[in-house]
């Protein structure tokens, strides 16, 4: 149904926006690099594709006069989600342009800010592009060429958002949210298998719990994994035995 498609597409756009913001935050710092610029470019392109797809879908749904009132309210809610995502994306793109211009990579005398982040952002970008591993193929003048592209893309996005404002008549303030305060705590966050429980950031918060085995609920997943592993080993052993028997 149209609604489900919309929701999945909006989820994807949301994910890409979040990852894009994370990547832009790393610009200009010591974790900046050629790869980061390329990741930014590809994430941006993906975001734009998703945005265009979302927009066509949602506008077609909203233009339909025959839908019921609840459906219309639901589509308006999705529209508000979409336009807020686009706002964030637009701001992040403009900021990445500014910061990219201020911190060019190939100039020998410009220094990157030593923020303490030294790792790479490949995992975030892979998450955004929904691939397992990122492959980097950019050439060395990515910063200058990329910035020109970025400027054109920014104008496209701005135009798109303005068009959206003019053509679609949705009052954002009239939308009622479905989530109540504190809803994010109940969303299925697998807080268990990460060590971001309460990590010690500075001397002020000295307690450090490796939340590795922390949240008791998801102890099922490792057990299943072990079970599957054993099954595979057994199958491999059986096949090996057969092969040895046959030869």
């Amino acid at each position: 149904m149209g609604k489900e498609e919309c929701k999945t597409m909006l989820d994807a756009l949301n994910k890409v926006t979040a990852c894009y913001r994370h990547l832009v935050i790393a610009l200009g710092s010591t974790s900046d690099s050629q790869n980061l610029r390329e990741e930014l470019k590809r994430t941006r392109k993906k975001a734009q594709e998703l945005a265009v797809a979302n927009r066509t879908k949602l506008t077609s749904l909203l233009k339909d006069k025959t839908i019921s009132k609840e459906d219309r309210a639901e589509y308006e809610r999705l529209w508000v989600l979409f336009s807020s995502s686009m706002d964030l994306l637009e701001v992040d793109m403009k900021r990445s342009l500014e910061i990219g211009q201020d911190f060019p990579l190939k100039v020998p005398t410009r220094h990157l800010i030593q923020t303490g982040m030294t790792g790479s952002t490949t995992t975030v970008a892979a998450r955004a592009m929904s691939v397992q591993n990122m492959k980097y193929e950019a050439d060395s003048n990515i910063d200058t060429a990329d910035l020109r592209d970025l400027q054109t893309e920014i104008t496209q996005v701005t135009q798109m958002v303005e068009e959206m404002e003019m053509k679609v008549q949705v009052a954002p303030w009239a939308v009622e949210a479905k989530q109540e305060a504190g809803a994010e705590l109940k969303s299925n966050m697998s807080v268990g298998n990460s060590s971001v429980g309460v990590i010690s950031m500075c001397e002020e918060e000295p307690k450090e719990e490796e939340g590795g085995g922390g949240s008791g609920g998801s102890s099922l997943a490792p057990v299943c994994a072990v079970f599957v592993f054993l099954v595979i080993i057994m199958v491999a052993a059986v096949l090996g035995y057969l092969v040895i028997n046959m030869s």
Partner: protein
Amino acid sequence: MTIRTARPNRGQHFRPRIHCVKKVEAIVVEMQDPSSGVKGSEQKLNVTTIPHVIAGKDIIAWIVNKMKTTTEEGEVFGTMLVAYGYIYPLQNHRKLVMCNDDTLYRFQTPYFWPTQKWFAEDCDYAIYLAKRNIRKKGMLEPYEQVHYNQLHDWLNHKWDFIVMQATEQYKAVKDRKKPDRVVFDCQERAYWIVNRPPRRTHSAMDCGPERLLDPNTEEKITFDQHRRMNIFFQQTIMRSRVKSSVSLGALVKYITTYKNHDPFLAPCLPSNPWLTDNDEYWKLNMRRVDVPTKMRVERWSFSLFELLRDLRGRDDFKVFLKKEFSGENLAFWEAAEELKLGSSSSMTSKAETIFKTFLAPGAPRWINIDGRTMGLTVKGLDHPHRYVLEAAQTHVFLLMKKDTFFRYLKSPVYKEIQKNAQSPGGHNFSPDQLEQNARNRSLGIHPIVLWQQEEEANAKAAAASAPVDVKAMMSKIDRKK
């Protein structure tokens, strides 16, 4: 019909006081130079090691060296860098100062630097608070919880988006390595402490109203603008001027009289409510307080204008005039004020009553103004407008100022009030008490309640001062007989 939402055109709102940031950014970038910049070291936290940590004294030494200034100036400059958010402290993260010792700091990433164009939006803050809520499993700091609830009210229509975006951003960070995650959290927290400071944290992001013009662009003045500027300046030259000795003398006189009454220059007793969150000062200086403060009474003696402007002083003056049986001047002045500042629908009726009470020959409260003014006023009352009584009002004001005001200042009424006026001692709050005061801030009296009190008091006064009905008085006396 299209709905044009107030979508902020974020490129156009420039905040004026932060156009120094470009120069500060240049200095911060210079600090990064591996050879001549500030030397960083590593921070060890249990098992992780995080690089690029700098000590406060190193930063200040570098600033002093680079700018060739004293250590105090270097400290102030360092504190400015922290207050703007270019460098953030690692240990005492709420106190945005640069200490000249081994306290550790780190540089902030350029995305979180203060900029002239990009405002820290409420929507982003809401997303940050939601993320923090997830991290802390619902245990936000009290000021954060208050903000969270407020934002949930104001941004309710976007709340789904905020929750979704917060969960996604939270998941995106999880994939990175541990030191990077720690640094990322520290950075974001420092950014929001600078932009939404908790109580008693002094960040530098307090700026004035937004402008719609970029203060950095050079303005081209057109020919027409030049022409108009010329005309303006020529007219200015032809204006009559006061000698500077005279105007400066007046200024000096004003300063010497009012200098003790200015809460910026002299301590405002008992304590300035804006600073200590204790509103006793306002309570003592309310409209209908029985015993006014000494400062207030002193202020009445400065000029008739001050006396009449303070409504409590006006009441006192009325009491004095009633004793002297010369209250009609003040009553006329008040009626004229009401006409000037009141609604235009009631103007004709007010003008009628004023004429009947004060100006008609043989009126019950006839005021004594000279013939010419009286003639003008009566003629003007045929077609009443707001300022028809202006001439008469000024005349009456001058009469009061030259004669009655000085008699009032020497009268026993005033001397009595002066003697009984209270002068409260100063408060001396400790930081804990200040926190307590801040938490106990009340909303004060509702303006509608105050207005009702005013109306009641006015009605009572009107009834009391209505012209005595002679017939009723006579019949009462007859009945007594």
